[in-house]
């Protein structure tokens, strides 16, 4: 069963970490003389910060849900038949 807690966290943190931390450092060396260097670095860092925070909030919100969705009965039957979800631990 694919780990749905750690894996997305690692991947997303890694991705936005590269965009927000590693890339600006690379840009620092690539764009040494350019007057736009500061702007590019700032844009990368802020994009990474905003987008990562947004994803993180959505992730954490659904991590431990306190309530569940209310579905029509017919829909429940359909979902049970058609959707192949993660297999549940048979408790």
């Amino acid at each position: 069963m694919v780990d749905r807690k750690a894996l997305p966290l690692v991947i997303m943190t890694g991705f936005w970490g590269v965009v927000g931390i590693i890339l600006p450092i690379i840009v620092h060396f690539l764009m040494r003389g350019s007057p736009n260097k500061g702007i590019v670095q700032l844009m990368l860092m802020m994009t990474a910060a905003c987008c990562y925070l947004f994803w993180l909030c959505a992730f954490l919100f659904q991590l431990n849900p306190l309530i569940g969705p209310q579905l029509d009965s017919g829909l429940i039957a359909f979902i049970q038949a058609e959707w192949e979800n993660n297999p549940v631990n048979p408790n």
Partner: protein
Amino acid sequence: MGSLFRSEEMTLCQLFLQSEAAYACVSELGELGLVQFRDLNPDVNAFQRKFVNEVRRCDEMERKLRFLEKEIKKDGIPMLDTGDNPDAPVPREMIDLEATFEKLENEMKEVNGNTEALKRNYLELTELKHILRKTQTFFEEAEIHHVQAMHDPSLTEENFGLLGEESQRSGQALRLGFVAGVIVREKIPAFERMLWRVCRGNVFLRQAEIDTPLEDPVTGDQVNKSVFIIFFQGEQLKSRVKKICEGFRATLYPCPETPAERREMAIGVMTRIEDLNTVLGQTQDHRHRVLVAAARNIKIWFIKVRKIKAIYHTLNMLNLDVTQKCLIAECWCPVQDLDRIQQALRRGTERSGSSVPSILNRMKTKEVPPTYNRNNKFTQGFQNIIDAYGISTYQEVNPAPWAIISFPFLFAVMFGDFGHGFIMFLVALYLVTREKQLQAMKINNEIFDMFFGGRYIILLMGLFSMYTGLIYNDVFSKSLKLFDSSWDPHDPQTFKPYVADTLKGSTSLQLDPNASFPKGGPYPFGLDPVWALSTNKITALNSFKMKISVIFGICQMFLGVMLSIVNHRFFKRKVNIYFEFIPQVIFLAAIFGYLVVEIFVKWIIFTWRDAGTAPNLLIGLIQMFLFQSDPKNLWYSGQVGFQTFLVILAVICIPWMLLIKPFYLRHQQKFGQYQYQEVPTGNLLDDSDGEEVVYHSDSERSHYDPEPEEFNFGDVFTHQCIHTIEYCLGCVSHTASYLRLWALSLAHAQLSEVLWNMVMRIALQIEGIAGAFVLAGVFAFWACATVIVLILMEGLSAFLHTLRLHWVEFNSKFYDGQGYKFHPFSFEDLSEYSIED
């Protein structure tokens, strides 16, 4: 430092220009576009300035050019716009240009006059031709009637006004006169009536319409006219008829009586018309040729004339130092560009052939320089929306680079739909990739200009909206199922999938996270697609969106406060750091930072097991302020004590912000250490003689008056009071204001869902071939409504709210915005020098 983070360092310079070189130097500086001249003669009347004659000559030239342009447009000749940017011509060339324009104008006027005269002639001849033709029929009819009358004397009444052949004439006792002419067709009924009344029915009018409309020589309009002929007897009636014709502006023509003479006249008229046509054609050709030759150069001439005018306007602002035979200018310029300006001056001096070099001299001054932000085409849009609120004070932190990302991102939080964001992105992409062509087209529509100017903003807004749309899992109100859903419906009673009996028992069931949420984990990217199908989607997502709004709001406000310390450090205001910045941070962090931490902790710690006992954060916050505590709302030991500590800490910050700084400043002043803190002057260098300002006119104090003021305790205290209250109340009210992020995102999602359910869904349920046609039509309606309502209207609304969030909630934490914009003398925008506006 030439970056966008704060405005450039500016310096006041004095330029000493030799009189001969002045024109060329100013021209070079205009091409460079980096200096802002100050008006050294503000008291002088516009008509008393030194170069007023030259300006007047330029105005004359422009007037002539405009006359030519009008003529060119009238003929529909296209004006060649090569996009060339010719240099400003030297004064000698100006005389040549004036002569050229004078010649062209005179030629055009002559040609126009001639054309008018020729056309008038042509009109007369044409009317005469028609008269001759029509009267032929009149006289022929008269023949017949007369013959009849001769044989039928009882019909003599009708025959009175008739002319006869020569043979008849000798038999007639009465001689009748007639006039023939042409009148505008619409006036005929009134004309007839007037004739009948005035002449008491004793005149006889025949009229016939001219089929082709004739061209009026003056206005060029096509007019319908009619030929008429009036028969009368006696001199009195003749004079009356003539007067009436004059009154109705009918033109009378001499018409010969005999048919032979008429035929001769007709032939003569025809030949003359032919000749006139030829002459008219040649005149038009000549005019056309002159205009085509002018049209090739007219755009360039316009630019040249405007440049000359601009240079002379600027020269008018300079001061003439009679003893040293040179002109003195004062200007603001960026320190970084001093080299380029020196080079431009050198170029100008060389071009004018003068031997004495021009001198640039930096000056010390206490005046506040203008604010200059060096933008490129990408950042200019964002700078504009910040400047619309207020230009940054000289050298304070510029909010624009931060807004490049925060503005589109907050917009996207409110707009959050992948489909709509994608369309927005495509439109902006078109504007960006075609920007050169679109700029060349010079479209003057204001609304298009607004969208075009903000094309990079719209591009980023579209991109971020796609991202937030994916996280909200909203594509035109439908959800994407990129991964498997995390919710697997299981009966909480049996922990097995629901059986048909249970499902039949009720219309809808709420899934229990204990049973239906696998231990695997949440949906990896964004919101779970199952929420799109649920009926309690709004209730569940409200909590999510509100918390997001508060988190991002507090983050942005915190960023604002952090930017204020950058300002304090740059302007070396230590007082502000200790007595404003630190209590501000503590206040914000103690209350709202704590709230954000609580949100995250609640998300992480509490599971379905605690669904009944999970704390309500909002009530907790309120109770924290009121120093109450509801035991059911507490969730960690020592919470009451810790919260009390935080509130007291925050409350201490208020007098800290309010009282200490004014008293400290007063203490400083008493001991003679007071420096007037408010005016930043970080650029006082002198690398030359450091001459003081000699020709500076004191009457121009449109900007800050930097004389050190006396320390007024009352003022300072009041100011500090306002600042403190604004900050503390602002923290609370702005945090609530950020909830608009939730409100708009909810509205957008609901609008889009309603549009789908009420429009497309109905069409999709129609079966058969008819359904296909109905669907096509309904899709068109759905698409139009999506673009107009959801993208345009909602987009504008979200744009406005984001703008407000930046202007009020973000800027109030650090922005002063009292500067004035650097407006360099440049040839790029010459429209202000045209005489049109």
